[in-house]
């Protein structure tokens, strides 16, 4: 996404090459995350938004679940933040973007946070490896003491 609009800059990025500046935003919804009921409303809004693109019901479930994991990280680690949901166009592809943004403590070791996790006893308990598997593209930027931004996209096939 627009790197220059990200207040945290590119401190650390798992996938810096993906999708920067090439996407046209067709629609955007922002959901404030202040508590666990916001997790539910964020994933419900994301499902409705993604449904307008004609994703299959299992893809909608994947997207809603990814939003749920990202929103929960905000509640657990930063207390509050925001989930931005977008309908994107890149060339002749359309898709959805989910961006979770907070000004929480940041993730000290992103590589570790993305490791393993193919079980319920997750590496750092952040659920990030799971989100990465559910979505097509995944980027994370985090600075200690400043916050974390996770961006994930799924394209309609």
């Amino acid at each position, binding site marked *: 996404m627009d790197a220059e609009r990200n207040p945290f800059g590119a401190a650390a990025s798992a996938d810096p090459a993906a999708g920067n500046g090439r996407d046209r935003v067709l629609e955007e919804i922002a959901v404030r995350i202040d508590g666990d009921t916001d997790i539910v409303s964020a994933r419900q809004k994301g499902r409705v938004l993604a449904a307008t693109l004609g994703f299959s019901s299992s893809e909608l*479930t*994947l997207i*809603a679940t990814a939003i749920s994991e990202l929103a*929960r990280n905000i509640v657990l680690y930063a207390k509050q933040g925001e989930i931005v949901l977008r309908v994107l166009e890149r060339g002749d592809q359309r898709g959805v973007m989910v961006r979770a943004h907070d000004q929480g403590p940041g993730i000290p070791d992103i590589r570790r946070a993305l490791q393993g996790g193919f079980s*319920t006893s997750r590496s750092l308990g952040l659920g990030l490896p*799971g989100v990465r598997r*559910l979505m097509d593209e995944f980027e994370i930027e985090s600075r200690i003491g400043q916050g974390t931004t996770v961006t994930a996209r799924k394209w309609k096939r």
Partner: protein
Amino acid sequence: MEVPILKQGPYLIASIQSALSDADLVQLRDKLVEQVGRLRSRGVIVDVTALDVMDSFATRTLRDITFMIRLRGAETVIVGIQPDVAFTMVQLGLKLEGVPTALDLEEGIAFLSKKDSSPAKEASPSGR
């Protein structure tokens, strides 16, 4: 959104009606663990048919419910996991190991009555 818990003979049936917040799930866990003792229930069925998302927290809480109820001396079975939800859980690596599952309420009751009639309770059908 509070989950209604119905008593049906020796069993408790928790029938989830809509999306649940984390706090709702934790409340369900605590209520079931308490009621299984107060009502001297032999088994618990948690019907998740209405859940369109089972993320890591929901899965962990269902596991916790199952193991806590087992420590209380009763058996739990999760019923009604939808195909799309099952697909996503597998993608996420959420396997619910050690947690019995059944297709629907009817199969869940059949599972519990079979368990009840054979008192040697060790293995669970979904493997361990």
